[in-house]
Every structure is written in C-alpha cells, then in structure tokens.
C-alpha cells in the first residue's frame, strides 16, 4: 500500500475556491463565521443501545457516531498491568459522493490513529484500572468511529464523539469460571474509569497568512495547510499536520489557538448544545 495524491474530491471549482479564499482574507468566511469560530456542536449520548458506550456528534453538517465495545484480551507485553485501547474509523459510503466502498483508506486510518493518540497520550482513560489478570487478561476497549456525513473537519468531530462515548461507557463486570478464567458479565456494569484530562482536538487551517479553526468541506480543499492539535489539561498531547505547510511563526500561533480554544470547545461539548 502506498499513498497517492488524491484526485476527484480535491478538485474544487476554481471560482468557489477563490471566493472561499477571498472571504477568509477579509476575516469573515463565506458561511458568515469568524476565523476562530466553531460551527454549532450538537451531541447526544447513548444513541446505540447495543453498544457499551455511544455518542453522536454533529459539528455543523458533519455527523459522526462513535461506539464503544468492551472485550477481554491479552495485554501488551510491555504493559502487562494495563487495558488495551483500539480505535478504528470508517468513512461510510453515505458520507459524501467521494467516499468509496472498501476497507479503510489512508484518510480513515489517519483519522483513527490521530484520535487514538489524543486519547492515549492525554491519559483520559485510567488504563491501569482495566487490567483483569496482570500479564494474561485485560479489558480491550474498541472505539469504532463512523463518519455518516462529511462536511469537513472529521478529526475534531470524531474526537468529540469518541470522548463522549467513552465518558458514558458502562463497563461490563467480570465473571469467573470454576477454573478462574474470566469472562464478561454484561448484566453487572460499572462506570469506565476516566480522568479529568479530556483530550480535545482543534483543527486549524491556513489560507494565505490567515489561520482559521474548524474548516468545513469547501474550505478544506481551499487550504494552504492544516494541522490538528489535541490539548488536554493545558498540555499539547498530540498533533498532526495533515495538509500543506506552515512557517515556524504559524505553528506557534496554531499552538496558542489550540490551547486557547480547547477549554471553550470542551465546555460546549459538556453542555451538549450550542
């Protein structure tokens, strides 16, 4: 598998691209938003009864569902006393005229891995409390991200949906056979142990010398650069440049914007409405 310059969806009509770029230079975007203004965030938790935890997040017209399923498995050899986190992402064929049927492509893999690193390095989940039998058995948390509608900024929306789903996950208990072998008991549940280090991803786009947050679909394909920075408790815990280039000053400004915006986005997410 190799990574190929994408086609199709990246060809935005020149006139649309020009108008998006001109608007950003003037400080007001084509949708009327300011440069440092997120779209409306609407969220709902527990939307999938068959999952152990779930949430749907709508960031403007972008819609992402996250479902958490707990399982039992072997811990990693270098972390015998910790649970296991596995994040996967699917961009459904429903999501846009440009998404294809098939196994996750490089965009879906990048989306999953960026969200994974944010959750992992923030320490949001207390992984040590997810060991069952040290070295041999541990909880495996599967976070599956489903992109239902892609109107841009999938990373931020997927991160929000994953965090909300985890925050409302009820962890199945452990039942033991006579041999002592553990199995899951979905009739007895406890709250998933989390911490106050909630990871919030802030995606920042660049057009000319202007930086903007939460680029939508049309804006994404008019950008000169894009970087997603995940913040937890006033620390940067992960980042990824996903498009174009930045100068040193622009990267420093992007870090400041992310540190500044993350608490605001977290507050809006907690209230579940605009």
């Amino acid at each position: 598998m190799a990574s190929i310059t994408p086609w199709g969806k990246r060809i935005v009509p020149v006139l649309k691209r020009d108008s998006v770029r001109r608007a950003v230079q003037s400080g007001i975007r084509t949708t009327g938003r300011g440069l440092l203004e997120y779209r409306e965030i609407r969220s709902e938790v527990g939307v999938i009864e068959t999952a152990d935890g779930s949430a749907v997040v709508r960031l403007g017209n972008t819609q992402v569902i996250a479902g958490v399923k707990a399982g039992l498995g072997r811990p990693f050899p270098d972390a015998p006393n910790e649970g296991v986190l596995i994040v996967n992402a699917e961009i459904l064929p429903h999501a846009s005229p440009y998404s294809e049927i098939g196994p996750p492509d490089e965009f879906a893999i990048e989306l999953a891995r960026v969200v994974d690193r944010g959750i992992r390095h923030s320490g949001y989940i207390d992984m040590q409390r997810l060991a069952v039998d040290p070295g041999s058995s541990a909880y495996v948390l599967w976070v599956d991200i489903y992109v239902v509608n892609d109107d841009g900024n999938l990373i931020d929306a997927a991160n929000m949906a994953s965090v909300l789903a985890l925050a409302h996950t009820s962890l199945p208990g452990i039942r033991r056979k006579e041999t002592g072998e553990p199995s899951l008991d979905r009739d007895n549940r406890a709250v998933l142990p989390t911490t106050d280090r909630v990871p919030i991803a802030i995606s920042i786009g660049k057009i000319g010398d202007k930086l903007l947050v939460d680029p939508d679909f049309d804006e994404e394909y008019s950008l000169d650069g894009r970087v997603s920075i995940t913040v937890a408790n006033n620390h940067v815990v992960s980042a990824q440049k996903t498009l174009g280039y930045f100068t040193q000053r622009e990267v420093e400004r992007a870090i400041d914007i992310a540190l500044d915006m993350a608490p605001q986005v977290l507050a809006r997410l907690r209230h579940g409405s605009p």
Partner: protein
Amino acid sequence: MTKAPPVPLLLGGKRSDGRRPDEVRPLEMEIGVITNADGSAVVSYGRTRVVAAVYGPKEAHPRHLALPDKAIMRVRYHMAPFSTKDERKNPAPSRREIEISRVLREALEPSVFLEHFPRSLIDVFLEVVQADGSTRAASLTAASLALADAGIPMRDLVIGVSVGLINGTIAVDLNSLEDQYGEGDLPIGIMPNLGHITLFQLDGSWTRDKLVEAVRMAYRAVGEIYGAAREALKKRYFEAVQEVT
C-alpha cells in the same frame, strides 16, 4: 503511562548513547546507489538506515488517477522484516506504515514543482532496512536527495529530524530507546531555505513553552543535517564534473 527504561535516558547531561541533548547521531548519505532508478539515496542517522528510490516523472497509471494540472506523487514507506530489533516485522503494510506513507507524501509534495508535470506520476519508494528510531525523519531526507538526484525541480530539500522530551529535557534525533521511553516525540520535516514546516507530528505531553522550544531546536538540527545533505549532493555531482574536466 511512562515506563522505566532499562538504562537511564539522561545521566550527567549525557544521553544513553553518550550524546549531548542537542547532538545528532553520525550521519551518512550517499546518492545514486540504485542504478536502475531515476534517482536514489541511502541515508543513515546512526543505526537507522533508509534506502530511497525515485522513478519518474512518468505517465500516470491507472489513467483515471492523473490530474490535469499537476503530477501526482505516490509514496510508499515500508520497513523490512529484518529491520526491527526484536521480533520479525510482518512485511504486510501495517496501519502505521500506511499513515506514515501519507504524512511523508504530504511532507514532500510542497517541495516539488508538481505543476511542471501535468498528467504524470512521480514514485518515491522508501525502505527502512535498519530501524533505530527517527525512521520517518531519515526517510524524508533520503526521499529529498533521491528526488534531487532524479533531476526533478524542487523548491528546497525537505530535511527530517525528530525532537523529543527525555526526563524533561529536549533532545534531538531520538533513537528507539528514547522514542519508546521518552515523554514526547515530535517528528518534523523542514525546508531549511524557505523555513517551511511540511511534516509535523507529535505525541506525549508538552507544555506550550517546551513545545515552542522543541520546534526551535528542530530548526537548528535541520541546519546541520542539511549541511550533510548538501555535501552528499556536491560529492555526487561537482566532484564527478571535476573528474571529467
């Protein structure tokens, strides 16, 4: 989260391999190592060694992938099964390798005048033959040298380096031990003459000030690696010209 390393990562201002925090490992670069390729290079950052080959610009196949206004670029980052220290690495492409192929392509594209070659394809193949940390950073430098060797017009070379946090100290060019046990890792790719950052990834836990300082340190280390890259190009081209004349 952070586990104890088998040896101290930093002791008396020296790292486990004897380097200062701001010291890059010994660099080796050679250009034109694969005669069949249009451009090639082998780059070593200490024990990390990457072989890069470039084919193209050539006709884009399959044709529907071609772009009417610029060349497309195909990048494959891959680790040899024998390149890792412990277990054999499964040669099937992992999710990690697919993601790195993508970020490397995004890091190289801003450096190449793709618009000079509409409807064509440039292939960049990166094989990590020996891994000891900073493999994507060494891959970037190797890819740039191979692109230059292929005679493809570029705005600048992209030079890769990783910066990390070990015991609260910022260190450059991490080896695999430091990558595994350090508190943060920041692989970065910079076009040194333009000052543009084209690869920027990060994990760990960073305060604003440490992060800004780490980026500044990356620029300094990139300057040093760029010097070695220039020397390698000179050795390949200017000395060859001198021999003829």
